[in-house]
């Protein structure tokens, strides 16, 4: 590495974003406690919103039903008997079955829900869900039935209580802690006072550096190229 590049590098660092700031010492840090707090609140609110069960079907949950139940005039090309009540009920039941099956972990595969899996057990669970829905059971009843047999482990989105809360809160907490650490590091690296444009070279003991290095360092500090 040549002296010129080192010099240039040093010069850029000195003339970096901090050097030109004219803020008085003790001015607003890059990451203020208020900003940190606001971020934490937003993140926690987001994860809790995702975690807490809603009493009825949320708009997102209801969407597949709505989209899978087209108005009679648009259903005409797809179904042999357009608008027939039985067909529409079947389509609704299929959509609801898929939605409920999507809540359960496929037991014999990895990373798939019962709705996505084509394994025999998953297909039999889909049939069980469809039958129960057809008999008028609510998705919550069906969820309780599977939890009774397999435990909460089968739920892809475990209820946010007890130890399960860790699953929802730890990522948010880790994010906030990480943000705080980044903030600290950034503040710690920042010079506490702005560097004057023409600062005198610091006094160094004569024997600390070679004369050549010392001259280079002084030029670098002055910003000469």
């Amino acid at each position, binding site marked *: 590495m040549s002296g010129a590049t080192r010099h240039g590098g040093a010069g850029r660092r000195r003339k970096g974003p901090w050097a030109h700031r004219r803020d008085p010492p003790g001015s607003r840090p890059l990451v203020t406690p208020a900003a940190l707090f606001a971020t934490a609140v937003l993140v926690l609110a987001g994860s809790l919103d995702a975690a807490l069960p809603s009493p009825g079907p949320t708009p997102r949950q209801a969407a597949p039903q709505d989209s899978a139940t087209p108005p009679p005039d648009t259903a005409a090309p797809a179904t042999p008997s357009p608008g027939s009540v039985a067909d529409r009920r079947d389509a609704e039941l299929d959509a609801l079955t898929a939605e409920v099956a999507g809540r359960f972990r496929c037991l014999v595969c990895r990373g798939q829900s019962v709705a996505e899996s084509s394994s025999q*057990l998953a297909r039999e669970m889909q049939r*069980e869900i469809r039958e129960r829905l057809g008999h008028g059971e609510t998705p919550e009843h069906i969820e309780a039935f599977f939890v009774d047999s397999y435990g909460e482990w089968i739920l892809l989105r475990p209820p946010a209580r007890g130890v399960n809360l860790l699953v929802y809160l730890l990522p948010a907490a*880790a994010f906030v802690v990480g943000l705080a*650490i980044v903030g600290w590091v950034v503040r710690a690296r920042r010079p506490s006072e702005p560097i004057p444009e023409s600062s005198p070279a610091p006094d160094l003991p004569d024997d600390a550096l070679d004369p050549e290095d010392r001259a280079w360092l002084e030029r670098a500090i002055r910003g000469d190229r």
Partner: protein
Amino acid sequence: MRAVLRWALPLAALPPLALLGFGLTRDVKTLPSALIGVQAPEFRLESMYDASDSISLADHRGRVVVLNYFASWCLPCIVEHPELVRLRADYDPDDVTLLGVLYQDVPENGRAFMRRHGGEWPSVVDYDSRMAIRYGVYGAPETFLISPRGRIAYKLVGPLDAHTAPVFRAKLDSLLAIGDPGAEGHERLESAPSPPP
């Protein structure tokens, strides 16, 4: 500030490391069962040997029931089969009933499996895995230990082999040692509020 960071960074690494340590020290063969200690779901299913005959759990009240899910296509079932034959020979049929449940298979294959590997005990066919879903079954083989009162006392996921069979037998023996309440006592206990397991 630097002093804070020197402590904060290792401290921040501790919880993930603790979680990792916890995860690595679990026994991967242990699967959670929500059914231990609860009343075994009742069933009446077609016999594997005679489609006109049916077998129910209630038929075996007052005895310890070893309920074994198996299939002819399942290799670990072949591995554990000799242990089941020994189990059947070692215990009095009046105390312990071994009951097979054919899982995701057809009766002809199940009968051929038993002919090929020996042993004979009552078995039922679980069409569409309806009973398996009620019993929280993941796959074959799985073996449940059901108390004379009809409670699920233990569940083994995977084959009965040199490692698991002694544990299973110890559970079975302790269940027998607790005592058999008998048919009449059983009736009474069924209607009474269930004691904690």
